[in-house]
């Protein structure tokens, strides 16, 4: 991180965020001759120079495989890689760095859990998800269901787009649920779920709680101890970090009971053909050469958002979201999906007579990137009674001016298809 940004970062006012845009080289690109207005950060966020440089610098000056080398480059790279584990532990306020497991992405983390924690569940036990989950938090549990005779239960979502806690309680009532695995923030509706309350509910009925923090961790300070979660999952590329790196956090007491998932180098302590003995945590769950450069990039991303501070980030985002909701809802025939009391900067909408794909294409021709489709949440689409939506989602670099441009262009789209 260069000095100037470090200063900018120290305590940005709501306007100070504008200056942070300079840290993101891609934002000066044009698309179809128009300045890029990137409103698709919920799919994947842009990367600050600090992240790009951390990765380049690694490859330029200090790189080797980790853990197994006795030479300087390997030791230093191991230090850098393992140092990120400490950063992630601090980001989540995890009790121990050994509880941080690096995966390829959120999907990899949830699959690991579905296999390894799933193996500790008995036939006839249940896993509870919700109607609001990303496919990545649905399909691994379906596969567990089909593989191991685990029941899959689905908690309803209210018309406001919130988790139906009464229904969740019902699903837990018979005490057969071993795990509740729900999103901490919806990638479609922006709904932030009441994680601490869900944890109490789950624990009261003997179930553990996994939170899919893929979206939440970008927008909120997450404290897994305060939430009393048992597992927490996120993905680097949405947190301004690189692709190819994700995180599973889990309580030591649970991780220790779980068999490993992937087998290979680094996750064993001894190997003979008859039998292998597993390594200690966290290595038991990290097989093969890890995503070294990507972990280091993630570390730089964590440094970056923490230098800004989650208080400032959340205030900035609340401000943007309120502005966007006001502007969008003023458009005739535009319908915002969900209106949860606690929500973040992800807004899905439909527009009368205009299909989400056509909206996205027309916006794109004006340089504005939004997502259109089912957002990897087909069951939620069905619940909401839509086939697809357009979705605008904000990053720390998003400005009110960009939101205004979105609203103005949507008005033109509306007229075009009226």
């Amino acid at each position: 991180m260069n000095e100037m940004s470090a200063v900018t970062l120290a305590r940005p006012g709501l306007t100070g965020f504008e200056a942070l845009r300079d840290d993101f080289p891609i934002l000066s690109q044009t698309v179809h001759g128009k300045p890029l207005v990137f409103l698709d950060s919920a799919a994947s966020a842009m990367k600050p120079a600090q992240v790009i440089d951390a990765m380049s610098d690694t490859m330029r000056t200090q790189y080797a495989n980790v853990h197994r080398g006795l030479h300087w480059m390997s030791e230093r790279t191991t230090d850098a890689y393992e140092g990120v584990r400490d950063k992630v532990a601090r980001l989540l306020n995890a009790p121990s760095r050994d509880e941080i497991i690096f995966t390829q992405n959120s999907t990899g983390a949830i699959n690991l859990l579905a296999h390894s924690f799933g193996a500790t569940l008995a036939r006839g036990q249940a896993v509870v998800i919700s109607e609001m989950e990303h496919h990545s938090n649905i399909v691994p549990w379906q596969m567990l269901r089909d593989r191991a005779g685990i029941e899959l239960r689905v908690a309803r979502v209210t018309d406001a787009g919130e988790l139906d806690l009464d229904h969740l309680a019902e699903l837990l009532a018979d005490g057969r649920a071993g795990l509740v695995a729900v999103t901490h923030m919806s990638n479609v509706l922006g709904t932030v779920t009441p994680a601490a309350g869900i944890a109490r509910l789950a624990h009261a009925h003997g179930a553990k709680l996994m939170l899919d923090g893929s979206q939440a961790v970008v927008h909120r300070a997450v404290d897994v101890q305060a939430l009393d979660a048992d597992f927490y999952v996120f993905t680097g590329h949405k947190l301004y970090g690189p692709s190819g790196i994700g995180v599973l956090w889990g309580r030591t007491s649970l991780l220790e009971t779980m068999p490993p998932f992937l087998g290979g180098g680094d996750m064993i302590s001894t190997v003979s053909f008859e039998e292998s003995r597993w390594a200690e945590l966290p290595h038991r769950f990290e097989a093969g050469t890890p995503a070294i450069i990507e972990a280091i990039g993630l570390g730089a991303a964590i440094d970056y958002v923490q230098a800004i501070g989650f208080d400032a980030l959340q205030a900035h985002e609340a401000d943007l979201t309120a502005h966007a909701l006001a502007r969008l809802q003023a458009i005739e025939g535009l319908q915002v999906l969900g209106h949860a009391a606690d929500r973040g900067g992800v807004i899905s909408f439909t527009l009368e007579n205009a299909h989400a794909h056509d909206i996205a294409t027309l916006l794109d021709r004006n340089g504005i990137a939004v997502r259109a489709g089912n957002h990897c949440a087909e069951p939620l689409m069905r619940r909401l009674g839509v086939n697809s939506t357009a979705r605008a989602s904000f990053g720390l670099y998003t400005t009110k001016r960009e939101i205004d441009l979105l609203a103005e262009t949507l008005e033109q789209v509306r007229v075009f298809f009226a």
Partner: protein
Amino acid sequence: MQGPQATTADPMSDLYQQLIVERARAPHRAGVLEPADGGAEGDNPFCGDRVQVTVRLGADGGVAESRHRTRGCAICTASADLMAESVEGLQRPAIASLYERFGAMLQSGESGTTDSLGLLAAFRSLHEYRSRIRCATLPWTALLDAMSEAAGPGSGRKDT
């Protein structure tokens, strides 16, 4: 676009040609033939688009009539409609050839000179919108399935 600003002028004049927008708004060949000689559906789960195509064959085995019921974007709906119109009177080989030339145009952006694509040339600039090409081809896959059904061993009129 009727708006005073030029910002969306581009997409209107290239991708969303007047013909496409009109047919999306008020298709000429919407509906379901009952009875029909063949019928099939095409699905794009990614966006939930769905096209149902029914065909009635003439004495020569060619398409006498074709109708579509489309739940989809403007491109998909207009494509289904212009397809239904374009294939009337054509036999299967001619339809396959037309689809092939249509697909080639969607990839290259060139509509060719000899074998005219007729109204279908309206989709020429879709090649710049790669992720939208499937919207235009979905009705065609449904049509070909419908034709196969009509020609199939168990073929014959049925109520859809």
